[in-house]
């Protein structure tokens, strides 16, 4: 299995299988959640539920001062991590081509050099996140294997992507193959780990926000 065959597989059936498991898996999880139902709130409303849902969807993007003051570094690192990941994923030319292929529309990207730098920062931020996880007694206490698996499968694409872009370690062909395989690993693992939060966070915020909005309570 030389690099070219590996790349061909990764760009072919490998991608297909992974994407299928990802989409099917996430939908399965979504339907499993929705099936459990949500009884309507019969108490007299003070405000609008949907408005509360939307507000909470946005409000939770920023930390509350009381908690931020206690863990500023860890929270800031969380932002670097996520924003970096989104920039690399959504604003890199070649990635935009991929989205364009099935969305039908694309958008301008950032210079590849910038993406490279942001990728490096994101990798460091992810590593910092692991250090935080291991050193903070609360998170270490509540961490499970799932957290470390999710961390690893998130780091690999960034790492291989960085090495591929900079033509390091092995031939570009092999590195691109490894990059795609690591993305596929992420896609396959995602529906069965905490990575479901990439979608379920919106549901969770909406549910709590809806109740809070309806009750005219801060959320």
């Amino acid at each position: 299995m030389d690099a070219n065959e590996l790349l061909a597989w990764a760009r072919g059936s490998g991608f297909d299988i992974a994407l299928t498991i990802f989409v099917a898996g996430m939908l399965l999880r979504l339907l499993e959640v929705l099936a459990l139902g949500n009884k309507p709130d019969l108490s007299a409303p003070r405000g609008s539920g949907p408005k509360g849902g939307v507000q909470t969807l946005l409000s939770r993007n920023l930390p509350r001062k009381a908690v931020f003051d206690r863990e500023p570094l860890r929270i800031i690192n969380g932002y670097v991590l996520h924003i970096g990941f989104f920039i690399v994923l959504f604003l890199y030319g070649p990635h935009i081509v991929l989205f364009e292929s099935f969305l039908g529309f694309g958008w301008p990207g950032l210079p590849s050099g910038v993406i490279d730098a942001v990728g490096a920062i994101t990798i460091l931020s992810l590593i910092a996140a692991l250090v935080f996880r291991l050193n903070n007694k609360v998170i270490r206490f509540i961490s499970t294997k799932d957290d470390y698996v999710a961390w690893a499968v998130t780091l690999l694409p960034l790492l291989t992507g960085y090495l591929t872009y900079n033509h390091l370690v092995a031939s570009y062909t092999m590195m691109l193959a490894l990059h795609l395989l690591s993305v596929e690993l992420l896609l396959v693992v995602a529906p069965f780990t905490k990575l479901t939060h990439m979608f379920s966070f919106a549901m969770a915020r909406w549910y709590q926000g809806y109740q809070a909005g309806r009750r005219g309570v801060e959320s």
Partner: protein
Amino acid sequence: MSAPSVEKGIQAIKGQIDAPVASFFSACVHCGLCAEACLFYTETGDPKYTPINKVEPMRRIWEREYTLFGKAKAALGLSKEVDADTFAEWETLVYDGCTLCGRCSLVCPVGNDISGMIRKIREGFAAAGYAPEGLIGASTRAVEIGSPMGVKLPAVQAQIKHLQKNTGLDVPIDAKGAEYLVLLSSMEIMNFPEYLEAIARIMHQAGKSWTIASKAFEATNSGIQIGVSDIAKLLVSRVVDAADELGVKTVISPECGHAFTAIRWDGANLIGRPYGFEVKHILEVLDEFVKKGLIKTEGMEDAKLTYHDPCQIARKGGVVEQPRNLLNRIASNFVEMEDAGEMNWCCGGGGGVSANERADELKLTAFNRKKAQLEALGVDTLVTACANCRLTLEEGLEENNMDIPIVGLTEMLAEYLVEDDKEQA
């Protein structure tokens, strides 16, 4: 009715898991920020008090029962079960170590309502027989006698007679067609009778018709605290039936935290239909009266004072502005403590913790958070709007020999009412 069992407990939790709970467990990324918002963790430093860890048994049941992947893992013996040991180990986390204050739910970056889940998981713990002694006693008295502290109607009548003698005001009982039905919490009847007197004087000046229901004078709801919806439904139905019978327009929830949650938010869902009347917290009513000019105050309290936001009233009840409006009218030196408002810290005694003797020591440790807030401020008086907060704070201050008197806001407001000529008996 069968004896409590682990199986019943698990069944109860399975019944409580709904789409929101499932979405919460699918969203939690174990970031640990909920712990940073929980005074049981911040004051003990023990990671087991991390809020999301408190609902771990429910997460296990959700994963094993309601996800294909979870069932597969269970079949391969890769996931932990929930058994008697689990209940025993988690009992002190779910009851002693949580006042259902909701602060964790407010800071969770992915929006998980963790305190809501703890309320749900208590259904399982109670059904499995792992509810604390104190709460079982309180619930039993609430169901059998009518009040968790065993207060019977004659006691209320005696207090009413006392009040009528002092103020010459009438306290109508079971008055049909009254606009307001006033509820009292046992704590107020027993330890802080001034509340009823304040209500009488305020209603009198506002010229509003009000009444107390002989069959439903008790506002508290131990069913909410112990986490048994069946009991909560029974208790709240008394109030609803009385309100419907008397045809009142509005039921006033007194200065009590969980009572407001019980009657304002949970009641309709427990009995399964919307109310035919409105429910307001006493502070909402007072704020309305003041705004409409129905009651006027004179004179100002000049002592430096601050306000403690009871969690169920401010964070969970949305009654945040009203106390500020009221205090600004009657206090010239009102200062806010840090994190005041919906992010205020809990007193440590709510959600049934104060009724649970086993949790006393933990409660006092948790109080250090409030102590820090008060020390940073240096006030002469502490105002609050929940009888249980008031008692918990008093015990905490006493323990730390901090000499700060605590007064209920309604009682304080009554003291500054414009003196109309009280006709003497």
